[in-house]
């Protein structure tokens, strides 16, 4: 019995030390932040990983793609090496994504609640770092859907909006795939690049129903977009970036993929791709805006970049097309990307 008690005591001590390690692991050096905060909001516990220079209390919140992507997938290249020196970058795992956890029903996942989550994140950062914290919001791909949804709820807490190949018009994506794929495929065939692949793209475009949205056709087109960008990269039309991220050990692969599948299915079943659009409400967004787009983005075609720029109600706005980029200009042309983002933050902070 004595041995049992000794063993129990040892285990208790080990657990205690472990818990202390957990609660004390964050860096308190504000010029070189390495914080992990959890935002608990409406049944979800969502990690926000904060890295970089917080000395001016300028926070750049990145809304990842997907839905079902993960925050730290953006911590590479010049975001890590240059932008983190300018400001604190907040890599946020959205509800049901990455390592987020919680307990809520399927009704607990929709764009409105996810936008409220972002505003809850802002409140948490203000609570921890002070009410004088300044925020920029940056959304990539699906993050470009969630960004406008957030800004339309409350844009006054943000100094600026950075839209990177974002989908403000999920509903319009299906038809634009058909239009843009036809243009790009014909261009590439004329250049005699990968004729077989691009003829396959034209065949796919002919096969899908151009009048009525279909989930299956949408996913075929979306998959073909990624495949097409890979082909364009091999043909040196899109710059091949160097990925130096180190997220493998930070996300349990099975958890991350399971969450991706689950949230994507739920949002899709709720009409994400055939009903959701903010096109008619972009004029209500009036804070400074920077729209960055890959010229050869097949996943969210450049038409949407021009449309976002034209329709945003901001008096201060800028559109930049990255001529050697696809869906991820921060990956394809990282230095130009960082220059644009840092300049925008410095002008508006």
């Amino acid at each position, binding site marked *: 019995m004595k041995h049992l008690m000794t063993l129990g005591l040892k285990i208790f001590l080990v657990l205690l030390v472990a818990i202390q390690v957990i609660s004390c692991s964050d860096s308190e050096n504000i010029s070189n932040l390495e914080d992990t905060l959890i935002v608990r909001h409406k049944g979800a516990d969502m990690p926000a990983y904060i890295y970089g220079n917080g000395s001016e209390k300028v926070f750049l919140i990145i809304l990842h793609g997907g839905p079902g992507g993960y925050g730290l997938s953006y911590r590479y290249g010049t975001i890590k090496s240059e932008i983190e020196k300018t400001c604190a970058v907040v890599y946020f795992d959205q509800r049901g994504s990455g390592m987020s956890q919680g307990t809520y029903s399927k009704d607990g996942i929709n764009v409105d609640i996810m936008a409220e989550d972002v505003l809850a994140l802002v409140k948490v950062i203000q609570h921890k770092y002070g009410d004088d914290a300044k925020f920029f919001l940056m959304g990539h791909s699906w993050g470009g859907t969630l960004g406008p949804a957030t800004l339309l709820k409350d844009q006054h807490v943000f100094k600026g909006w950075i839209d990177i190949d974002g989908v403000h018009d999920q509903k319009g994506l299906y038809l634009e795939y058909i239009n843009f794929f036809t243009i790009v495929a014909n261009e590439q065939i004329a250049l005699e690049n990968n004729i077989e692949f691009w003829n396959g793209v034209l065949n796919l475009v002919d096969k899908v129903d151009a009048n009525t949205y279909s989930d299956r056709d949408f996913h075929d087109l979306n998959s073909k977009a990624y495949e097409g960008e890979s082909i364009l990269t091999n043909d040196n039309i899109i710059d091949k970036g160097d990925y130096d991220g180190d997220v493998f050990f930070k996300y349990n692969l*099975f958890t991350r993929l*399971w969450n991706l599948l689950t949230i994507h299915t739920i949002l899709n079943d709720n009409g994400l791709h055939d009903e959701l659009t903010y096109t008619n409400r972009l004029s209500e967004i009036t804070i400074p805006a920077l729209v960055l787009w890959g010229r050869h983005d097949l996943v969210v075609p450049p038409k949407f970049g021009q449309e976002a720029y034209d329709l945003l109600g901001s008096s201060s706005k800028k559109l930049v097309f990255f001529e050697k980029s696809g869906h991820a200009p921060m990956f394809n042309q990282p230095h130009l990307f960082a220059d644009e983002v840092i300049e925008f933050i410095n002008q508006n902070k």
Partner: protein
Amino acid sequence: MRQLPLVFLILNSYSLFAQNKSDHSIINSKSLYDRIEFKASYTGNILWNQGITIGAEYLWRQKAYEKKKKRGTKLITHQYVLQSEIGFTFMPATQTDTGLLTSLGLIWRRTNPKGKQISIGINPIGLYRSILPEVYEVKGDDVQKKTLAGRIYYAPSLTFGFGKFRKNKALSGRYFNFNFGIRTPYNASILPTFTVSYGYRFKF
């Protein structure tokens, strides 16, 4: 909550009895001490989560039978064992998947004359309590920091394992298990989990 598995084991120990012959000396004993073994193991998925579990096993029933072979007979032992475990799992990289776990269930284990074992376990009662690093709860405009915040998930599991019975040794057995489980309700559905365990059984 963590005492529940032990209470369950003790309550059950008075209503259960041994059967048949065995190469284990404990088989005809009704002593709780003889029938209980303790165990400790590494439990995790190696890449992301590292953890430790400790537990107890209570030999509920045992049946030995002889299997006739060309070169004689083999004594095969089948055991039904009630088990309970508690553990701690830690995600060193971000601490976003750290928690306490407990399980209670039944193991079927087959031992051959060389002491080699295979086992299948079912743990219908299991709980996982996450421990999150620095949690801020937001309700409207109110933000509150929570200490040792986490959530409790129902976490039943199945295990498949291999092991070795070590007769007359202080460490009476070792095992390597594959554990498949779920946590529910997790986000808007469930979360499947997969871990491995490597550990030893022993008596005090």
